[in-house]
């Protein structure tokens, strides 16, 4: 049966290859110049990077023809200290990519076939206005949801609030770091947020639980980890894979996957039983110590050994190393922590361990970040939605601190939610949902049921194929955006100004949001003709101006709150029900969850299957960079890491292409090359996330490598906050092309 919303391949229209003028490379070949970035540069414009969420501030350099030729970090930027990562340096490729979306597209049916036709902005907005008004008149603005990631989301966020929609959601919460936010909030009364306030620079011991800093190029953290290595800090890495971080570590614990919580509890046991905890800190600042002590009494290293395969003496030794470094020790909260559905409890255990070591609010542990609050221009009050974002979740996920993207997908499916609350219309900006959300079947059901989908992107990512209207956004190098006001050791503000004219008919999100706002009668929420006016006004309130900021890019301010660290000998107020660090969480207890973490056994791989572990490569961000000309040149595809023992068993050879099949019989669309390596345990396989693109119009990324997301059909949802645990999937190998086998 024909679907109401077929996945449309934009390339069939010939937009994919639409070349607009010369690339910088061509220019130089013509002029015979040997250098590109190295050629004389004439001017520079400040920006902050949008290739990942770290948002490093950079100078975009132009040559005398005005062509953008290179990006370099801004020296006094606390996010990058003048040094971008490969993605930031290669950010130029986002701008140069010849596969970019260049014109609005509207879904039409021609000869019984759904396809896109190029449209003017006027036509695209006409259609959106008509459909949105229909939906709002029939079901109310509460039936509209925004899925967003990155800077563009700010502008559409304003639009959706102005419309009266309660739903503005980012997969970065429930598909990434949400559990740690709740784990730390219930313990310390503070969120971790981004960038993490980890004082790695001055730490004496950094503990990484599955966190692969160095492969995830969270720039500031990577830089500080290198500093810590220089200073001789201990690094303890817990990972079933010999990650880059593991290779830099003084201690590597090659743990059996899915058992981290047992190790954490055993560490807590040792540190309490041996009396290695920070006694004064624990006495002054925490509640529930006695309960915790009783709770972990039997959770000995010997108990944990049977679960984790980490030897008891190694558990004791590493606990000792942490205690010796205390309070200059960081048990890192991690970032992508949605693993097994008990992730809030695991990150709680991490928070508790930090509390016992006295690292929260201490030099070399966690500092108290400060950010500059930005003034906002006056606008009418936002209308109050008839219900709030948590309505669609009912009694589920009571501690979710932000809307849960997967719950909104569910709430878009008939029968999954009371009909009057069903979501009818989506706007998706800067997030490639089919590659971001696990359990694609749910996504497809939602897409089939929705009345209308608008997608905003710079590239023809998979999500654009599900849209009714595609709006081409210009890249971060071609637009103004909100000021970056980031929390850090010192407050810092950075400017993003356009360094090039938008290519083709692409436009900035600030303009799209304003124009759509006008059509919906919401002009007053967008008090600008050009977004630079807002920036200039804000900057003037902060004692500078747009012109002045263009010359410096980054402005760092002195702290207003003097306490970068907790003063000694003072009862510090914590924002928890007890006002103390809660080793025993009264909040979790109140909602019927374990007030102290317990180890729960998770399924292990069935025979012939291997646990699928996925992660990051320094050259790429999610699925969004795999088509970038520079970054795809650096890493074209992912490979499947297989232990030599497993390879021998299956007769697999290096470079051999195989297909994956998971526990639910889902077979990968594309094959993946085998990488035989000792760096992975024999019960697991590993692949880098973000490859195996399905869209031919992504000419460099199409069909290269395989998609881990495709294999993630078993999702273990965290009952506390709705995080989608994705590490409980197992794969086996298919050696012949399954399409040929039939």
């Amino acid at each position, binding site marked *: 049966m024909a679907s109401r919303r077929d996945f449309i391949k934009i390339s069939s229209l010939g937009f994919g290859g639409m070349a607009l003028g010369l690339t910088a*490379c061509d220019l*130089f070949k013509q002029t015979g*110049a*040997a*250098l*590109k*970035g*190295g050629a004389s540069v004439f001017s520079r414009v400040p920006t902050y990077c949008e290739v990942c969420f770290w948002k490093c501030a950079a100078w975009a350099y132009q040559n005398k023809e005005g062509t953008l*030729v*290179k990006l*370099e*970090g801004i020296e006094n930027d606390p996010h*990058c200290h003048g*040094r*971008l*990562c*490969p993605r930031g*340096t*290669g950010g*130029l490729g986002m701008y140069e990519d010849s596969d970019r979306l260049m014109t609005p597209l509207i879904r039409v049916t021609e000869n019984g076939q759904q396809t896109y036709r190029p449209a003017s902005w006027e036509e695209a907005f006409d259609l959106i206005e008509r459909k949105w008004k229909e939906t709002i008149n029939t079901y109310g603005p509460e039936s509209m949801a925004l899925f967003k990631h990155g800077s563009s989301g700010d502008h559409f966020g304003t639009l959706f609030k102005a419309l009266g929609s309660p739903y503005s959601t980012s997969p970065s919460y429930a598909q990434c770091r949400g559990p740690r936010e709740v784990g730390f909030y219930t313990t310390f009364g503070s969120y971790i947020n981004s960038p993490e306030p980890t004082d790695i620079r001055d730490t004496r011991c950094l503990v990484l639980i599955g966190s692969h800093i*160095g*492969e995830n*190029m969270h*720039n500031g953290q*990577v*830089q500080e*980890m*290198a500093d810590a*290595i*220089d200073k001789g800090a201990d690094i303890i890495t817990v990972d079933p894979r*010999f990650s*880059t971080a593991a*290779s*830099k570590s003084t201690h*590597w614990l*090659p743990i059996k996957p899915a058992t981290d919580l047992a190790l954490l509890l055993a560490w807590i046991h040792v540190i309490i039983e041996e009396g290695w905890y920070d006694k004064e800190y624990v006495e002054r600042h925490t509640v529930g110590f006695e309960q915790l002590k009783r709770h972990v009494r039997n959770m000995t290293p010997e108990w944990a050994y049977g679960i984790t395969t980490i030897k008891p003496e190694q558990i004791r030794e590493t606990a000792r190393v942490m205690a010796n470094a205390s309070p200059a020790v960081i048990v890192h909260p991690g970032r992508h922590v949605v693993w097994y559905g008990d992730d809030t409890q695991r990150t709680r255990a991490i928070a508790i361990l930090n509390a016992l070591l006295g690292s929260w609010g201490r030099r070399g542990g966690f500092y108290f970040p400060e950010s500059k609050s930005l003034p906002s221009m006056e606008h009418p009050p936002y209308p109050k939605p008839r219900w709030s974002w948590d309505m669609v979740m009912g009694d589920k996920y009571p501690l979710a601190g932000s809307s849960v993207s997967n719950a909104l997908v569910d709430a878009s499916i008939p029968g999954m939610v009371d009909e009057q609350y069903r979501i009818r219309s989506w706007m998706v900006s800067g997030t490639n949902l089919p590659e971001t959300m696990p359990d694609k079947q749910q996504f497809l059901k939602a897409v089939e049921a929705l009345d209308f989908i608008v997608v905003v992107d710079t590239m023809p990512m998979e999500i654009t194929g599900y849209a009714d209207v595609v709006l081409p956004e210009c890249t971060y190098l071609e637009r103004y955006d909100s000021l970056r006001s980031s929390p850090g050791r010192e407050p810092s503000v950075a400017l993003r100004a356009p360094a090039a004219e938008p290519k083709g008919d692409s436009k900035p999100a600030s303009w799209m949001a304003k124009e759509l706002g006008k059509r919906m009668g919401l002009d007053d929420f967008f008090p600008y003709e050009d977004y630079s006016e807002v920036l200039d006004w804000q900057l003037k309130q902060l004692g500078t101006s747009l012109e002045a900021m263009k010359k410096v890019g980054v402005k760092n301010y002195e702290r207003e709150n003097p306490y970068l660290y907790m003063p000694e000998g003072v009862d510090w107020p914590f924002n928890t029900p007890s006002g103390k660090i809660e080793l025993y969480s009264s909040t979790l207890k109140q909602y019927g969850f374990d007030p102290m973490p317990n180890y729960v056994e998770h399924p292990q791989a069935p025979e012939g299957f291997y646990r699928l572990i996925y992660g990051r490569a*320094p*050259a790429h961000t999610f699925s969004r960079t795999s088509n970038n*000309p*520079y*970054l795809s*040149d*650096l*890493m074209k595809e992912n490979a499947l890491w297989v*232990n*030599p023992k497993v390879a021998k068993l299956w007769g697999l050879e290096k470079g051999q292409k195989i297909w994956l099949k998971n526990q639910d019989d889902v077979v990968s669309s594309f094959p993946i090359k085998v990488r035989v*390596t*000792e*760096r*992975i*345990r*024999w019960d697991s396989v590993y692949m880098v996330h973000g490859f195996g693109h399905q869209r031919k119009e992504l000419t460099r990324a199409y069909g290269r490598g395989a998609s881990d997301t495709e294999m993630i059909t078993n999702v273990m949802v965290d009952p506390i906050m709705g995080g989608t645990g994705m590490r409980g999937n197992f794969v086996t190998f298919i050696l012949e092309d399954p399409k040929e086998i039939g």
Partner: protein
Amino acid sequence: MRYAMAIDTKKCVGCGDCVVACQIENNVPTGYCRDWVTESVVGTYPQLELELRSERCNHCENAPCVRCCPTGASHIVEGGVVLVTPEMCIGCGACIESCPYDARYSHPDGHVDKCTFCIHRVREGKQPACVSVCPTKCMYFGDLDDPNSEITQLLEKRKWKVLAPEAGTKPHVYYLI
């Protein structure tokens, strides 16, 4: 003056920023590179060691590529930097064969190309592009004849190695280990 590079393998995470920065700085065509990252793993799980190395032309003191070049296109300039003059290069490939580091490639324009230590930047008092972007600051560039240079001091303090010492090329890229 003897220019050299030292790369700290204890800090390098193999991110490849050096590769991208070089490509953009020097307009290296897509699909080619003047520097690259090598990973070597020793041992069996879980007794493992990993070394990541950013590699490039070693700007050898005893450079086989210069000796075997029939036209003089490959030559040595100030600081011992080995360069190729594209206009003089006939693309015979003898230098590519002779290099024990596989540091040279045939540029699609018909000449041989390789790392220049970013001599155009060094002449302006800047660091080579790869060194200047490295997020972990694991790369050091300087003059071995200057006893006060950071690189000279690091090589005195730290353990180091060079690649393929048996080739007798006297390379100028050092790896701190």
